[in-house]
């Protein structure tokens, strides 16, 4: 890292947000096992440092697009926890009223333009949001999170080209978690993803995605440059997902696509635990304080999940409101 580490308060905030995401998703994992989730869920567990390190530089006016694995981005960008649970549970109180579910959590008031069920689907949306930000002249930026698998979608190169030509305030953040569904990254992506920016004249960074400070640092440079009118950046954050591609995948996959040893080995570099250890080692956080935070988060998550789980189901009558009608326009 070239510049100074962030101050204590910020580091503690990063930790809190990472731990929140972890605990919220562990709740969803157990909800899934208990058969409480109506649809598929893709968990972010193991990748928390990326969303948190990037989003620490964003405020509500900034814009972000996410992926099918979107709870982490949503929470890192300030999305409401209970409304997220309610959405994944399919309740009327969900952040999308139960219309979207896990793959579509969105909160436009907070600049969260949505998780996206289309791999690569958020990239062009973020470029469009960056265009809006540029036109607004309020120094806003847009960030697109996407996976290594999504890097194979042509829309990435289209967005790189346009962002370079227009010098859009756009940060393209590729989370390389080693797999595209059940394919190892090398089987579906040639070369190094972050190298694909240079031909367009776009700066790129490749960072340790399990280290929130490394991500924070790289994202800070990229977002700062974007705010100053310096144009787009491609960040590739190397990370790993601890859970399956989708919860319950072992039920339908016949052969393992990765070994238990590999997962165990990578779990030793758990971003939440490593960062926790570092906070204690650097004296920024004490065991007591961290435990207090974790208890608070446990309570927060349990309360949000419990109340969301008691919320009412949406009533079909509300579907009427989504039907396009005559005369709306003029």
């Amino acid at each position, binding site marked *: 890292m070239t510049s100074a580490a962030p101050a204590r308060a910020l580091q503690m905030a990063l930790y809190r947000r990472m731990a929140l995401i972890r605990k919220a998703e562990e709740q969803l994992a157990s909800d899934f096992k208990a058969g409480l989730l109506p649809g598929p869920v893709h968990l972010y567990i193991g990748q928390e440092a990326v969303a948190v390190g990037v989003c620490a530089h964003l405020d509500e006016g900034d*814009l972000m*697009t996410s992926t099918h694995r979107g709870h982490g981005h949503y929470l890192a960008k300030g999305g409401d926890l209970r409304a997220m649970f309610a959405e994944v549970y399919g309740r009327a109180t*969900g*952040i*999308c*009223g*139960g*219309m*979207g579910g896990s793959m*579509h959590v*969105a*909160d*436009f*008031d907070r600049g969260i*333009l*949505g998780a*996206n*069920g*289309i791999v690569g*689907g958020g*990239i*062009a*949306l*973020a*470029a*469009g*949001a*960056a*265009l*809006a*930000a540029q*036109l*607004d002249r309020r120094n806003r930026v*847009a960030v697109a999170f996407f996976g290594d698998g999504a890097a194979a979608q*042509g*829309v990435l190169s*289209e*967005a790189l*080209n*346009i962002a370079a*030509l*227009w010098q859009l305030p756009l940060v393209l953040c590729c989370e390389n978690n080693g797999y595209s569904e059940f394919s190892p990254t090398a089987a579906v992506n040639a070369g190094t993803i972050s190298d694909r920016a240079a031909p367009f004249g776009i700066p790129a960074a490749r960072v340790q995605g399990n280290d929130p400070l490394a991500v924070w640092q790289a994202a800070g440079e990229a977002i700062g440059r974007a705010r100053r009118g310096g144009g787009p950046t491609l960040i590739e954050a190397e990370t790993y997902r601890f859970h399956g591609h989708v919860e319950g995948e072992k039920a339908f996959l016949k052969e393992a696509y990765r070994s238990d040893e590999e997962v165990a080995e990578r779990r030793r570099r758990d971003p939440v635990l490593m960062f926790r250890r570092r906070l204690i080692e650097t004296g920024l956080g004490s065991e007591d304080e961290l435990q207090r935070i974790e208890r608070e988060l446990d309570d927060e998550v349990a309360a949000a999940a419990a109340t969301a789980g008691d919320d009412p189901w949406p009533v079909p009558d509300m579907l009427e*409101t*989504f*039907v*396009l*009608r*005559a*005369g*709306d*326009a*003029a």
Partner: protein
Amino acid sequence: MPRKRTIHAINDAIIEEMERDERVILIGEDVGSSVFGDTRGIRNRFGRDRVRDTPISEAAITGIAVGAAAAGYRVICHMMYANFLYTGFDAIANQAAKLATMSGGRIKLPIVYIAFAGGGHSSAAQHSDNPHPALMNLGGLYVVAPSSPISAKGLLKSAIRCDDPVVFLQPASRTGEQGDVPEGEILAPLGRARTLRHGGDLTLVAIGAMVRPALRAAEELLQEGIDADVIDPQTLFPLDKGAILESLARTGRLVIVDEARDTCSAASQIAAIAADEGFGLLRAPVRRVTVPDMPIAYSPPLEKALIPDAARIASA
């Protein structure tokens, strides 16, 4: 009343709406030079910030429109030929048509995708489709098909002010046609048909480029003693069923003319509505005058055989 070509009516509509609301922006390939002339002069007038020539990247462009709209702009996204909607179809079908509903209505997406549709100019299969059936089936987009300079202007201005995505499909074969266009504000409400001719013997519904030959066919039919209503739906989704059924109640006979391929065409949808809600009114089979189910051919005699004309309409 001043006469205008359709292409100038569209140009006026864009300029007026960009003057009216500075959050209206225009993006697309060569919108500066303007292949059809409809965006001519707009970049010089409003500058390169609000008017952006894009690279040939339909997948990105259609999605950029969604992102910029979600972030507060009114985006006119020019797709040139309607076949290129297919090239950028993901962001239209999976994002623009769905995002508002998937989000529980918490966002509005004011986007107009403009495209020039249909055949008649020997541009062959990849430049002659009328893709409105695919778009109408998405359920999340207004689909608009003007038929004259005045309807082009009124519909486009309404489309630009609409808070939901609209696909505006200008018939490519009708850009040079002249018509009366009054000065001042013209707004044609979306979802409302126009009855262009009141007959009473037959309901002739015609879409987009087919309105002119339908009106001509109506004249021919008059010689045979059949006086037809001619209805232009203007908006294909959502359809103005009421106007069609109301006419059908008087005529009992329905012919629909659509320059789309027959299967799953707008003509079929209208016929299906008639066969259900209008069943009691029907006194004769519902005829569809459409394009046979195949790609449009290049050679003039072949293309002419595929696209409905007044003679085919009159004999339907």
